[in-house]
């Protein structure tokens, strides 16, 4: 999965936020914990590419602002190319990586195996700012072992000029009129999740039976030639070129396409919809692998990025749904109402009630589904 940056020029906004954020951070990041959580001097973090605001000239990015405010050295790398990297990093426990960003389903597996350190809430008062919708996952109620990093939606993006009608249902992706010009995402849990929603099943409570039925929907569409391509973030290019008329799509990448923030011209006419049956929501997490010797430093960073001022800066740059309460108000206060009111960044309550986060199956069942799904492309 590619986490794309928004190339938006928000220099003035960043400067304003940077100044405010620095002041806030100086107040909170300097307090030393009164107990031993390992080293506070430095920590390592491996993130998805372009998934945090970088330093841009005089304007410090989040990592640099944190280093300056706290005196903690961050060994930061954007080499988390897929969740397979996360699995490798976890296998090399004892390495120098203290924060990784696995997607929710992998985080669930890691936590269930006991391979995650408890979040050091002693030094993260901003834990209170986690949006409650992320607190109720059955695999980590209360976010005791991870804190959400960014979240996105998998729904339907389409070109109304080519479909000739609005698309509102997942069933529209199976309309023979669009045969060979439909795109599906290569991520099993999202594709199967949409298949399950079409069947009236709940992806947040999957069973092998319902997940298989969801997969069967995808399989039959593939075998009948309905599916023109399995894509990652490149569904935007295929929609733009007209190769696809509609696709399973990530909200953040569609947002970039609409805003003209990709290497292609803006396509505000491309629609993104949350189907009537609902959409799949996913999120990436900040997780500390078991054995980390820098919980104190990692915890301070987590607290820093959960300050709404800092989180707003990240949201403005990455274009995904922030799990931090107060970001919307912060964006509005900073004079960016177009971001604050964007429904893809801040889904309203009615929309949230139609979002489903993959609930997870046993490791064996998930592997079986992964294998069957991968055989489709």
């Amino acid at each position, binding site marked *: 999965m590619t986490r794309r940056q928004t190339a938006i020029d928000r220099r003035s906004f960043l400067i304003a936020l940077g100044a405010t954020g620095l002041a806030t951070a100086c107040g909170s990041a300097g307090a030393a914990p*009164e107990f031993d959580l390992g080293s506070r001097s430095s920590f390592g973090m491996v993130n998805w590419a372009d998934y945090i605001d970088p330093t841009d000239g005089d304007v410090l990015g989040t990592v640099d602002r944190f280093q300056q405010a706290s005196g903690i050295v961050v060994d930061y790398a954007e080499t988390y190319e897929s969740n397979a990297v996360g699995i490798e990093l976890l296998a090399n426990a004892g390495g120098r990586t203290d924060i990784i960003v696995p997607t929710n389903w992998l985080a669930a597996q890691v936590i269930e195996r006991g391979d995650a350190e408890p979040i050091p809430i002693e030094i993260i008062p901003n*834990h209170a700012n986690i949006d*409650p919708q992320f*607190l109720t996952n059955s695999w980590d109620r*209360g976010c*005791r072992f991870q804190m959400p990093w960014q979240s996105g939606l998998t729904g339907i993006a389409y070109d109304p000029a080519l479909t000739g009608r609005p698309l509102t249902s997942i069933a529209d992706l199976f309309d023979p009129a669009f045969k060979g010009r439909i795109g599906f995402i290569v991520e099993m849990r999202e594709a199967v999740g949409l298949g399950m929603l079409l069947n009236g099943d*709940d992806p947040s409570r999957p069973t092998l039976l319902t997940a298989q039925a969801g997969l069967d929907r995808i399989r039959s569409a593939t075998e009948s030639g309905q599916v023109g391509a399995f894509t990652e973030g490149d569904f935007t290019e295929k929609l733009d070129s007209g190769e696809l008329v509609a696709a399973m799509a990530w909200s953040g990448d569609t947002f970039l396409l609409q805003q003209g923030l990709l290497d292609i011209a803006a396509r505000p006419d491309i629609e993104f919809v949350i189907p009537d049956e609902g959409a799949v929501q996913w999120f990436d997490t900040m997780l500390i692998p078991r054995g980390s010797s820098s919980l104190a430093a990692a915890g301070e960073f987590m607290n820093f990025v959960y300050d709404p001022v800092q989180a707003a800066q990240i949201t403005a740059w990455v274009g995904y749904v922030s799990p931090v309460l107060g970001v919307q108000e912060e964006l509005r206060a900073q004079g960016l109402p177009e971001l604050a009111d964007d429904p893809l960044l801040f889904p*309203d*309550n009615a929309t949230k*009630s139609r979002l489903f986060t993959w609930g997870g199956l046993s490791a064996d069942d998930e592997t079986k589904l992964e294998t069957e799904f991968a055989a489709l492309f």
Partner: protein
Amino acid sequence: MVTAPSTPGSAGIHLRPPPPQGPPTDQPISATPRLAALGRSLVQPETTPGWLRLWGLILAAALILFAVTGTLAGLSARSSTATIQDDTAPSLIGVQDLLSSVAEANAAATGAFLSGSAGTESRAQRNLYLDAVRRSTAEAERVSSLVGDSEAAHQALQNIGANLVVYSGEIESSRTANLAGVSTARDQLRGALDITGTDVASSVVTITAEARADLDRQTDRGLVIGIVAVGLGSLALLLLLLFQVRLTTRTNRVLNLPLVAASILTAIAVVVLASGLLTRNTALSNARSGGYDSIESTAEIQAAAFAAQTALSLELIGGQATEIQPLLDNVRSGIDRAKGRADSTREEAAVNLLEQRFTRYETTVSAIRASAAVAAGDPANSAAADATAAFQGEGLSTFNGLNTSIESVLFDNRTQFVAGVGDAADAANRLPVYLIVLPLLAALAALLGIQRRLREYS
């Protein structure tokens, strides 16, 4: 020995003479010479060998008695702690889980009902309800396998099982009626809530009382025999020391190493037993005060929060004000108590997070109730719909945040309780082995020491 048959006329073979005849059968049989000597010595303690043998017997008896009582005390402590660890503690926790699951089912059922009457039943609330009922039933079954022989507890669990079936049925009936727009739906819902508020709650109180009584019994089990064993061990040690002093004055020998070793082993055994029992009981006491009492207290916060959420739903469903504020006040005072009780930085942080999320929930409840109050004064006003929508959105969201924070505090409480019981089990587990080995080794050493002195007289 030649075994050839003795036949008449055989020559050249010398048969072994017959053994001497024993005493006439009318005379008493005397003991073997060794036993006879011992008997003479014992009845003649004024001789040094006799005196030594007499002390040997006394010390061996004292140490064996200590070994027996100490082992029994250790076994009793180990067995009762294992019962607490495997049955009593999980059943105490399970009962609290059962109660909070039922309370959550109530809150979710009313939430789903409210959304159902507003047109679209909330899937999230419905799922929460189904999960909570499933957990309640599972917890009841689990606790049933843990409560032991208590007739009252089993009866209470049977009542809970039966009541949960009736409760689920009533909820389903009210749901169906509600979705169909039948006016009696609300009364059916209230009836279902009454079942959990009275029958289930009273059964939970019974089970909790039984489990607590069992915790008391198991904690005290083996205590008397433990004290007796420590007393006997101390007596044995005293005798050993006394004997060595007397031996020194009587035989002019300064040091008898095996006897010194016996004294040290006995002293170690006494200390191991006393400290083991003390550590076990202290750990159980800490687990109870720092863990289980906190679990109960936090569960009360949770129950009050669920009750407030249920009351809010009923207020929105019925359009009439309910007594939510006292319930919110209960939550607030519970949080204040939890803050005072927090004994680790992590627990303090968890309670602080809980407080912040509760404050957020309180603010949301006030806003929802204000909209509902406006709607009550002016039915044409859209405020009722606004209030319901706000309940479905922010109300549920902030409540879920609050609830997961309570769960986090509960998790810390449970960890502390289970760890305390685990410490007690660790302290008790090795006692029987130490208390059979050390006193017996001490007895052997003592006898060896005496034997060395006796050799000087043989």
